[in-house]
């Protein structure tokens, strides 16, 4: 080990910024770190994407793409695939902090639990959305659905439902990070809580891929999805500090 030079102390510590100016920067730093680490290994994204493709392919053998029934269940089928594939990404979110006790360094930094949660949720959202956007054309081909007909409303639904999955998954990823069977526990905890969001996403997706516009009764499902996201994001922001410092 080479000699460590000692130098006169230079004050590099700035005055603390206010929460609202510091928070977006801290969120971006944590999200960048998670995305960078994932891009280096690609372990979660590759597993998630491969899983989504395999399940979409297997289900396509079970249902006749020419039948109307297939189109009626397409939304449900798609979100089951997204939810299962999503847990593979979400499982890694806090597990990534375990080697070398990195979570200690993150918790020791002058960063709020809310910033850690938002940074990780943002990175998870990007990764999940990427997997979903690559899976959507495959879904369209295998199940003979015109998913581009209501593209922008469908994109809105995908974004809102993915944020819901991400928020719940990130919180439970933090809760289960020190549990030995966390790969098993995470889906068991996440899916029951996700039922309202998944129901709304399935109803909306089924209607949108059938070419229906986002109007009438569908707006009630959209409101449910927005409400779910707002309530659980607020709860996660409030509770994350307690979750991290048990």
């Amino acid at each position, binding site marked *: *080990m*080479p*000699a*460590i*030079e*000692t*130098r006169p*102390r*230079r*004050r*590099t*510590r*700035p005055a*603390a*910024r206010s929460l609202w100016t*510091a928070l977006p*920067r*801290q969120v971006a*730093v*944590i999200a960048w*770190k998670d995305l*960078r*680490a994932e891009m*280096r*290994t690609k372990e979660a994204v590759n597993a998630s994407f491969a899983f989504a493709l395999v399940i979409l392919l297997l289900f396509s053998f079970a249902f006749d793409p020419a039948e109307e029934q297939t189109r009626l269940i397409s939304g449900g089928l798609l979100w089951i695939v997204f939810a299962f594939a999503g847990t593979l990404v979400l499982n890694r979110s806090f597990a990534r902090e375990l*080697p*070398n*006790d*990195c979570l*200690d*360094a*993150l*918790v*020791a*930094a*002058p*960063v*709020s639990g809310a910033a850690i949660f938002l940074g990780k949720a943002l990175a998870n959202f990007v990764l999940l959305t990427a997997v979903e956007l690559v899976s959507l054309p495959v879904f369209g081909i295998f199940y003979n659905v015109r998913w581009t007909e209501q593209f922008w409303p469908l994109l809105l639904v995908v974004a809102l439902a993915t944020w819901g999955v991400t928020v719940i998954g990130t919180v439970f990823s933090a809760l289960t990070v020190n549990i030995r069977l966390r790969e098993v526990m995470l889906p068991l905890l996440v899916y029951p809580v996700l039922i309202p969001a998944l129901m709304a996403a399935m109803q909306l997706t089924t209607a949108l891929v059938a070419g229906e516009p986002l109007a009438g009764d569908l707006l009630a499902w959209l409101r449910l999805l927005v409400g779910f996201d707002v309530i659980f994001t607020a709860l996660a922001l409030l509770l994350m*500090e307690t979750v991290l*410092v*048990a």
Partner: protein
Amino acid sequence: MSQAVAVEGVWKFYGDFPALRDIQLRAEPGACLALIGRNGAGKTTLLRIMAGFSQPGRGRVSIFGRTPREAEARRRMGFIGHGISVYDELSALENLVLFGRLYDLPDPRRAAEEWLERTGLAHVRDGLVREFSRGMRQRLAVARAFLHEPDLLLMDEPFTALDDRAIAVLQSLLRHALAEGRTIVMSTHQLREALELATDVALLSRGRVAFTGERTAEMLADPGWVYAHYGES
């Protein structure tokens, strides 16, 4: 001026088992407090409560007059635990810049490059940590802990798994930190190395403070002196 560390009546329970029992400890600014004790005495638990990683069941801890979870307290604190707390998938430079940004340093890249140079890692700054040797990883951990020039260093067995030369270098770095007026609280089993640096000593035994006081010449001459006089029989 407020105490660097003040621990008042701290209890910690794991289930019904009290891992810490009514701990009272203080460290003045500029002091070096060596926390000694057998395995399971509660040293790591106490350090983790001081660092804000864990909440005490009862009692309170203050760091420069603030609770450990306040951002201002954490900004003044550096922690070296059992793990190196750097990311294997990032390079040495990326790791330090990351923590420089989290600590809101004015120029994180410059601070990171300076510490890489000071710890002899400048030549591998862009190498991924997963490719580093054990010694290089430990040096990077030291750079991470010192990067934001903390006023208080909390160290959990910092000399463990270091070779003789690395211990000497870490001691020199810690001596320099003390000369600059920083406070150090370290738990250790390496009594000789710790007592050479320490200004104060606290012996934990079964979750209680069995002894606390200034480090004396007797302790330096015989590192087992505290155990012999205040430890369990």
